[in-house]
């Protein structure tokens, strides 16, 4: 007897088989949407079909919230998710987690490749970013002159900071000629004198329309632009490679205008505050100097200069007297010392010796002092110097003897 299943049992068995299959757990399918319905719960129900088969799909609200496009019947898409079985109606279906328009899938791959390659070249390095001026004088706007972006930027710059000059540098922002047109506009912007900031961008559009801003030449032209560049492409959720190469990314063209210029009102307020501070700092400084002056004016020298002068005169006299006293006493001491020295000098003089009865004998011929008897011969004349007067004598005899002690 073969085993008999209930419907529930068989469905449950199949569900187990399908849902544990590694391929069916994460599968990508390409086809065309049909029977699209958006339920009031926010979930999306649709079929993806090709010319021979159809596949039921459901995309829950939590997933479809992130979609960047509106799915519709006839649209070619690539859907990714898991295959499951819904027991209630016995049908298998794809639980869609991701969905992209079919043409975009290949674009997305190219985007990732270019981004990686240019990042590798250092095109997006933070060190290469130029500073955005705080108060630009003249801003170049590279965009379509007929688009919403240029209108938004002009309106907001005008409102925030009307003194700034704006120069629209027209360029095509979508279509085949757009990359070349944008590069040319960037080149022109570089040779307009006086520009100190550029905004490059466009309003929102489909991913294909924004794709120009993922063009390699455009990205390179933005990165190498000598002026600081703010990029403003599409909406907040659109990220292009131009955004990465720009010096600053704005979420939208309006956002770019707000980032580009300061609010004049705010600057006025700031300036007013500074003028106030300047004035009060100067006043305080003067106050401090005045206080110092007052302090000095109260000083006795300035308050009663005569009294001060009298005191000083008296002091000068005192010093003078002291000086005179010192000099005089020094003079007296010097005189006494001189006299003592003169007395000592006198005691040493040969004249003093003569006074004591000694005499000095000298040869008459040459005046040489005679110290020994042998120095003269008998008959030779000598002069004998006494304390008072001199004798001229003739030597009778020279008696050589011991040296007198």
């Amino acid at each position: 007897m073969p085993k008999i299943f209930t419907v529930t049992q068989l469905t449950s068995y199949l569900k187990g088989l399908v849902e544990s299959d590694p391929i069916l757990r994460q599968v990508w399918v390409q086809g065309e949407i049909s029977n699209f319905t958006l339920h009031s719960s926010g979930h999306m129900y649709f079929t993806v079909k090709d010319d021979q088969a159809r596949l039921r799909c459901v995309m829950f609200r939590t997933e479809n919230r992130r979609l960047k496009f509106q799915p519709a019947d006839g649209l070619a898409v690539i859907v990714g998710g898991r295959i499951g079985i819904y027991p209630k109606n016995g049908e298998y279906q794809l639980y869609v987690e991701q969905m992209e328009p079919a043409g975009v899938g290949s674009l997305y791959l190219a985007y990732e490749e270019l981004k990686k390659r240019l990042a590798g070249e250092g095109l997006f390095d933070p060190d290469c970013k130029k500073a955005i001026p705080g108060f630009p004088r003249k801003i170049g706007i590279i965009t379509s002159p007929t688009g919403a972006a240029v209108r938004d930027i002009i309106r907001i710059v005008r409102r925030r900071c009307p003194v700034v000059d704006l120069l629209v540098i027209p360029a095509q922002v979508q279509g085949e000629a757009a990359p070349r047109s944008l590069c040319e506009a960037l080149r022109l912007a570089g040779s307009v004198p006086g520009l100190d900031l550029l905004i490059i961008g466009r309003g929102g559009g489909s991913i294909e329309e924004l794709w120009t801003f993922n063009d390699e030449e455009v990205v390179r032209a933005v990165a190498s632009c000598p002026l600081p560049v703010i990029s403003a492409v599409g909406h907040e959720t659109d990220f292009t490679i131009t955004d990465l190469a720009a010096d600053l990314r704005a979420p939208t063209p309006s956002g770019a205008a707000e980032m580009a210029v300061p609010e004049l009102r705010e600057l006025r307020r700031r300036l007013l505050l500074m003028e106030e501070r300047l004035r009060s700092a100067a006043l305080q400084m003067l106050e401090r100097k005045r206080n110092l002056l007052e302090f000095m004016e109260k000083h006795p020298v300035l308050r009663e200069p005569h009294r001060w002068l009298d005191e000083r005169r008296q002091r000068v006299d005192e010093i003078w007297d002291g000086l005179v006293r010192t000099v005089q006493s020094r003079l007296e001491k010097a005189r006494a010392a001189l006299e003592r020295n003169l007395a000592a000098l006198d005691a040493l003089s040969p004249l003093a010796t003569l006074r004591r009865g000694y005499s000095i004998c000298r040869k008459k011929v040459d005046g040489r002092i005679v110290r020994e008897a042998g120095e003269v011969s008998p008959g030779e004349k000598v002069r004998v110097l006494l304390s008072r007067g001199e004798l001229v004598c003739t030597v009778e005899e020279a008696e050589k003897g011991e040296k007198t002690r």
Partner: protein
Amino acid sequence: MNADRIKEKSFEEAISRLEKIITELEQGEQTLEDNLKLFEEGIALARHCRSKLDEAQGKVEILLGIKEGIPQTEDFQPHGEEEV
């Protein structure tokens, strides 16, 4: 610091110099003469900044091309923003 050099300053340069002058005055460590000079410079800078803010409304132009190095421009009026 003479007036011509102040006039050449951008708004940002002038503001940042003004900020420095105020700080120096607030510290007040210079001589009276230096302080007065700083104050005068500060006043000139503030006046310069004010004139930048009070400048006439800027122009909005569109670039038509560059002929022999000179940009060819004309006034620009975005669509949907006609003057009333």
